[in-house]
């Protein structure tokens, strides 16, 4: 193994923690290995003395306090009146208010062909598996023919995985029909048994949401 080969293969062996038999007998490779160790030491030194804002923890506590201070619109009588007005308005106007799916939303949704692992856009059939990604600050509701069939937020375990700030709802599409996938911008709202009642609950709480309709054949 020449020195070039060390950079191509020996480095990988070292990253894997494997023994590089050749290096033990090759002076060029040993030299290259020493150079690499110097590079790694240099990586470790980059920004080693980085000094941020010394008051940063105070700013975090201030932001937490701001978060905890109730806003005037969250006071019970104000929020109660607002919720009632919003619920009435939404009940009348719901058919007009269903938002169009956004491009960003479409990117958070995959349909996996059952058994093959292949992904294929927006043409699901029964047996396929629907995957929806969201953040921990959100939740996912899935409705089949307007009935709630899946619900995923932090803490849920059935059909719902969460890791490193991300949620993933997984649902096998067992029946053909119209589905609605809803990502709600808060984990704190309980969905209702139906699509309309669930969206009304979100609107009444002033929480935004996005809807993606799907037709399963």
């Amino acid at each position, binding site marked *: 193994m020449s020195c070039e080969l060390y*950079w*191509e293969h020996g*480095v*990988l062996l*070292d*990253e*894997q923690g494997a023994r590089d038999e050749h290096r033990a007998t090759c002076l060029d490779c040993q030299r290259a290995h020493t*150079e*690499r160790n*110097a*590079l*790694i*030491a*240099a*990586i*470790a*030194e*980059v*920004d*080693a003395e*980085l000094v*941020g*804002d010394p008051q*940063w*923890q105070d*700013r*975090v506590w201030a*932001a*937490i306090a701001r*978060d905890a201070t109730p806003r005037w619109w969250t006071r019970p009588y104000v929020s109660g009146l607002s919720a009632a007005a919003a619920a009435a308005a939404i009940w009348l106007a719901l058919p007009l208010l269903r938002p169009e799916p956004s491009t960003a939303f479409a990117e958070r949704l995959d349909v996996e062909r059952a058994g093959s692992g292949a992904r294929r856009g927006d043409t699901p059939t029964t047996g396929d598996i629907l995957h929806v990604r969201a*953040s*921990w*600050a959100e939740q996912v509701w899935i409705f089949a023919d307007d009935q709630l069939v899946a619900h995923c937020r*932090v*803490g849920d375990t059935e059909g719902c995985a969460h*890791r*490193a*700030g*991300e949620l993933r709802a997984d649902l096998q599409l067992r029946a053909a029909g119209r589905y609605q996938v809803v990502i709600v911008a808060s984990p704190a709202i309980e969905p209702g048994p139906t699509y309309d009642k669930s969206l009304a609950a979100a609107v009444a709480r002033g929480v935004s949401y996005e809807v993606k309709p799907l037709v399963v054949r």
Partner: protein
Amino acid sequence: MGKKPVARPGPDGAPDRDALFRELMDAYGDKLLRYIKSVTRDLDEAEDVRQQVFLEAYRDLGNGLANDPTNWLFGIARHRALDKVKARNRWSWRFKNDPTDEPVDPEPPAAERGHDRKIISRFMKHCLGKLAVSTREAVVLRHQQGMRFEEIAAMTGEQAGTLQRRVARAIPVLQKCIALKMKGGL
């Protein structure tokens, strides 16, 4: 990696949430700032992201998410830092119509020229900035934060083997970049 903070009991015997949170900030604040800055390459943005990370962390602390604080905090930081980079790139694309130009460190002052390690470290910072974000992130998490590939894989959702190969391939690229810088190129 990193010592797991332990919640001290509060006056009522229950774990003191604020004390645990303070320990998390002390233990992870500097590490996270360094990591976030390596992704965003901008100290002001990194400060904003760090604040956002801890604000989210405080909200989630009650959900028992601090059992693996490294994975948890770096996971949030990663998402927020990448969001920042994407937002900046979108803004740049929309309003400047030219590629985002990362800040380039000036050449070292004459007084520093004798200190090889400092110069290499400065060049390394520049050369790390030339790597793709995903590669730079893997290199920094491995060789700056000292994380194991399995830990990085759990955080990023990628295979440990893929990350190993990515880091291994990056090292000779960095070596060539630094050699060029030493010769006065780039």
